[in-house]
């Protein structure tokens, strides 16, 4: 992942990326020429007109109409080319093909969840088929987030009050980083995901199996898997280290003091309540920042997570 690419750009893995890079390098080389003119001009004048001896009257040349028109018109033409080129690609980026697969992407502190057309869902890992247009319908459950996949050259804010869209067509199977690029608080830089581009068959079989315990896994193993894949790991450690949220290690069975002064025993019901209504009973010393997982985790998955937390003694 993230091998290759050019000096400046990461690898290009979507159909639009080539067009973006072409304009990037057009501006880059044009800017390099302009910069060279300014710097070479300065250097030449500095060397040639370096002051030696006593200062005397200098040339009164203070304007040159033709020259000034020249250096106004040429850059103006160049930036209009850049403007038109950038707009053309931007329109392509904003108009998704009609046959695009539509996936709902929701940002919240501090993970992404994805809902697929058949009802399957995933967290932080967006699974898409190669060579098919995919359209994301973006929104946020809390503050503004932004969905950014450098390898695809796409980015769009996820807002709490309206839908925004973004589309791409990934060219080959592979994995690509997904960043949140709108500052969203403590866990902003931990709001990382991956876009997993797979073949169409793999995509379809993943959709069908999603939500069931994968064959051969015990509930604890499945819980451990969900702990990673549903982004519990972003805030809850399993080594006892306190972070944004209490660690899972040795937590089950303990008695915790809550922020309202009451106390609660960490049992199955408390864990289930904390997953579905996380702000109902917050352990003292922590902020009520966890979002609900209602609709993201099904009963079987909640059971598996509880089994996993119980196992971390």
């Amino acid at each position, binding site marked *: 992942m993230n091998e290759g690419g050019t*000096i*400046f*750009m*990461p690898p290009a893995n979507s159909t*639009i990326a080539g067009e*973006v890079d072409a*304009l990037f390098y057009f*501006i*880059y080389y044009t*800017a390099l020429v*302009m*910069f060279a003119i*300014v710097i070479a001009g*300065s250097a030449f*004048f*500095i060397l040639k*007109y*370096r002051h030696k001896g006593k*200062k*005397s*009257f*200098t*040339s*009164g040349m*203070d*304007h040159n109409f033709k020259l000034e028109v020249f*250096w*106004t018109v040429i*850059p103006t033409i160049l*930036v*209009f080319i*850049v*403007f038109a*080129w*950038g*707009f053309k690609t*931007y*329109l392509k980026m904003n108009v998704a093909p009609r046959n695009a697969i539509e996936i709902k992407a929701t940002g919240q502190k501090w993970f992404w969840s994805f809902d697929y057309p058949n009802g399957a869902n995933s967290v932080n890992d967006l699974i898409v088929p190669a060579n098919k247009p995919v359209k994301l319908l973006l929104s946020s459950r*809390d*503050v*503004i987030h*932004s969905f950014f996949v450098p*390898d695809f*050259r796409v*980015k*769009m*804010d996820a*807002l*709490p*009050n309206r839908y*925004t869209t973004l589309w791409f067509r990934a060219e080959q199977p592979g994995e690509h*980083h997904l*960043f949140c*690029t709108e*500052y969203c*608080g*403590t*866990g*902003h*830089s931990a709001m990382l995901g991956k876009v997993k581009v797979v073949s169409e068959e793999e995509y379809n079989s993943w959709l069908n199996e999603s939500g069931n315990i994968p064959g051969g896994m015990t509930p604890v193993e499945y819980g451990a898997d969900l702990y990673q894949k549903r982004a519990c790991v972003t805030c809850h450690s399993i080594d006892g280290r306190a972070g944004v949220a209490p660690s899972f290690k040795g937590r089950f069975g303990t008695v915790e003091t809550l922020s309202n002064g009451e106390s609660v025993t960490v049992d199955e019901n408390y864990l289930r309540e904390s997953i579905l209504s996380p702000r109902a009973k917050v352990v003292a010393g922590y902020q009520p920042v966890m979002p609900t997982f209602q609709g993201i985790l099904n009963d079987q998955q909640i059971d598996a997570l509880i089994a996993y937390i119980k196992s971390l003694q």
Partner: protein
Amino acid sequence: MNTIPEKHFLNEEKGLKSWLLTLDHKRIGVMYLYAIMFFFLIGGLLAVVLRLELTSPGTDFIEAETYNQFFTLHGAIMIFLFIIPSIPAALGNLILPLMLGAKDVAFPRLNLASWYIYVLGSLFAIFAIVSGGVDTGWTFYTPYSTESAGSVVSMTMGVFILGFSSIFTGINFIVTIHKMRAPGLTWFKMPLFVWGLYATAIIQVLATPVLGITVLLLILERVLGIGIFDPAMGGDPVLYQHFFWFYSHPAVYIMILPGMGIISELISTFSHKKIFGYKAIAFSSLGIAFLSFLVWGHHMFTSGQSELAAMIFSFLTFFVGIPSGIKVFNWLATMYKGQISFEAPMLYTLSFLFLFTIGGLTGIFLGALSVDVHLHDTYFVVAHFHYVMMGGTVMAFLGGLHYWWPKIWGRMYSEKWAKIAAALIFVGFNMTFFTQFILGTKGMPRRYYNYLDQYQPLHAFSSFGSWILGAGFVVMAVYLIHGMLKGKPAGNNPWGALSFEWTTSSPPPTHNFEETPELKHGPYDYDKVLAETTI
């Protein structure tokens, strides 16, 4: 051998009270200078800590919450307490009336009031820092800023108050430039620094009220929950971004226009040559001031605004680039057939030309819609605005500071150490920030406490550069203070420049000139007049 005049504005009256109640524009300028340098130091130290933390991924020195507060404070302090007042309020106050051949600004009491308002605003900001900090980023985007913990109200109240300081200075300068010019100093004989301050003052007066209203709405939203930015009550968080950038994009030009004015002065003085394209430079300042109000949407290309709006903002953004380009070519042409010397102010001028050109050209990438989608909110943007704000405005400010330092204190600093510091700053700056262009194009998002391992070498190199940059500023602080106290007397006109401020003594008397000066030649007439260099 030069001597310091027996009586001058610094020693004519003594005691703390004589400073705190002064109406002398130069003393107010000096008080501004102390205040902004204090905040520049704080903002700079925060930056060094941020870079130190980013040297390697993971937690090294500070936690994520602390990091988020520090980058917020670095931005807010540098923008609102340092850069915006730096050139207009500090150097402008010191020099503008001298350049016009005037005794003072038009409204000396308003001028003193603006300083006190600045101090009051900064106290609110300091209170915000010690009473829980702010972690919203200097842009205070909603809805994050309406629900985050910390002292957002106190900080934004500080910004609201500081705005009035800026408006007062703007009004004062506009009236001063209209009414206080010495006999013979017509509009097109004014030094270009005055044109820069004039264009800046117009933006200060017209745009700052919008910022005031915006942060006031934010405060009302937080305290009373009026709902203007809250989607649950029918409000719109993106509306905040429109309001905010309607001020903050013109504010970029509040920061850079006076810097461009300084560069026009320095390039002519140290090329010993008439400025090329006087009117083009003067009118391009006004053109930039006007266009700066029409491009705010280019901060929001990925915010979900309509494609039509994005197209219009992109188009206008390219327009605003052209006048800046024209200025660069004019400065270049000024050196042609000059007699160029390389004292410290000229070194900063050349640094400015190099760095600001990079800053301007990288703006083209960000104005292009499709490329901006990739680069928006990455380190590319961070690098771009540091090249413009620090490589541009701060270099111009430092050039101006070194240029007028002997005028303010009557004494010279060490030229040798000044050259060493300029070199350290130039090298350190490029190491720190050029690296960040590449981080950005490779996809590294800004405002990240932690990052993927693949970005580590570039981050480490950038942090290393920041130490060299910091070292340059330490050296500068030492020789400037030493020069101010112990330097050798500079005489009236150490650089052989032609504008009014060099005809009076250094430091100037309280009333600036012994008798009202009269214009005998233009400020750039190096083809007709030779001024004796006094050092």
